[in-house]
């Protein structure tokens, strides 16, 4: 059984990291001016890193349990 929370965390974490780095160093000024002077790469990146961290924390605190066998007999 794999944990979908870790896959969400992986995607959001990589997206967040790439955006944060872009926002800090590689987003040209004219693109920032275009997006209403908000460095959206940076802020969205930080937001996604926070989401990723939250999912990792959740998966750590409440790990998947192997489900008990169903009590209503085998499926037909």
């Amino acid at each position, binding site marked *: *059984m*794999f944990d*979908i929370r870790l*896959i*969400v965390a*992986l*995607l*959001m974490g*990589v*997206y967040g990291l*790439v*955006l944060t780095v*872009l*926002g800090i160093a590689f*987003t*040209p000024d004219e*693109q*920032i001016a*275009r*997006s*209403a*002077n*908000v460095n*959206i*790469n940076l*802020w*969205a*990146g930080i*937001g*996604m890193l926070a*989401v990723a961290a939250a999912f990792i924390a959740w998966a750590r605190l409440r790990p998947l349990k192997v*489900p008990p066998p*169903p009590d*209503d007999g085998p*499926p037909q």
Partner: protein
Amino acid sequence: MSVLAEADLRLDANAVDYVLLGLYFVLVLGIGYLARRQVSTSLDFFLSGRSLPAWVTGLAFIAANLGAIEVMGMSANGAQYGMPTAHYFWIGAIPAMLFLGIVMMPFYYGSKVRSVPEFMLRRFSQPAHLVNAISFATAQILIAGINLYLLASVVNLLLGWPIWVSVIVAAAIVLAYTALGGLSAAIFNEVLQFFVIVAALLPLTIVGLYKVGGWQGLVDKVSAGPGGAEQLDSWPGNQLTGFGNDLLSVLGLVFGLGFVLSFGYWTTNFVEVQRAMAARSMSAARRTPIIGAFPKMLIPLIVIIPGMIAGVSVAELAGENKAALLAGGEAPSGATFNNALLLLMRDLLPNGMLGIAIAGLLASFMAGMAANLSSFNTVFTYDIWQDYLVRDRPDGYYLGVGRVVTAGATVLAIGTAFIAASYTNLMDYLQQLFSFFNAPLFATFILGMFWRRMTPTAGWLGLVSGITSAVVVFGLTQSGVIDLPGQGSAFVGAGAAFVVDVVVSVAVSYATTPKPEAELVGLVYSLTPKADRRHTTTGADAGWYRNPGLLAGIVLVVTIALNLVF
């Protein structure tokens, strides 16, 4: 139109954007591969072995519906009508989702049926079952094709790929993960898609609001623009319904959209109900639509508001262009409201965010198509193949059939995608027509669940006459005999179908013999022991925050508050 498409909608995606987009597709296929290892029986393939936690099925429940039509269509409606579009969420979805979880789910989940048509078979008889199974399966193939075509046309606009290349590539990706991992792969991908869609649209909304000077700036600009301040309040929504009278408009929204159309869609459409059937317990199944309702309440804020922002800030859509489009003409710029989201992304997002926004759009289109495929293969395999064509084979045989059917359905969807490409209007009509089908289904279900006297003959006769009257009303509105602009005609058609279904079902029930009561246990309210409708409150279902009734109450209060604020 084509001038605009070629030159102005092409986004300046660079290498970083493509890498971010590529990473998403790698994970999508990876989920298909991982989910494959959990599939050993047909129930694993078609219903995820009824093993998933409620938050997963709940997010999948709304992500399955968050397809192309929802994201592009609702932002287009936002640009055109403004806040009244939120009714599609607050009136048109939330009450029906809560009703499904609280009232209907005990029968769907408790009776252990494997699909919505199978409930028809057990409650009524084979004719009702066949009508439901065949109309559902046909609708899914057509809608899958429409989703595929919309996906391909957006890829074509954004990245410049030819339509046929994007159709086949997108179909191959969706097929790969749904055929490998079945419903689990579709559901886990829907969860991932949900987060990507939010990650794409939330920053776009925030930047857009900064651009127009905050919420107050948006209010001022919309009020001053064509459409006026009426677009800032969700009620009475006359522009949306097409009714001139305020009271009629409110009634149309509450009964037409709120009651008949949306209850039909959310409570009988197997695409949605299947997600709840995959939950691991009765409690989780009941919580599925209720947990889904929490994000569903807030989605209009990141779909409709960007549309409204585009309607006042994107040069091709604002001012005289919006006025011309509202008057029913063509904008001087050549843009349409359907371009709202794409144009806003083009105007505002830097490289990086742009790649994620493209990933979010493609994710939403694939979510729609995968949901169509995964519900089609279940209904076709269980309800048509196993019940009527090839019976009594071992379970492994039907698992194999499911995989083959998924591939066949994909090929058919590619076919319908090309039909959609050549006859855009035809597809619009068909889709509207299918939206009418849900209203009589809801009438038949709700009567069948709560009225034990209803007979098998009434089941299929009511359904057929309801569908027929929907088609008749549809024909009358299309040919101009009944004239209702806006969404009013859909509300009237669905309402007529509902009433005819109820009248015919009741009349026929009194003239024919009902099923013996012993066969209806678990399917009809008054014949189901209370203990069987209850859910357990121990183990993974314990705790006040897992109580479906309490959660539903919270959703209701917040929805009412949202209606008061807007």
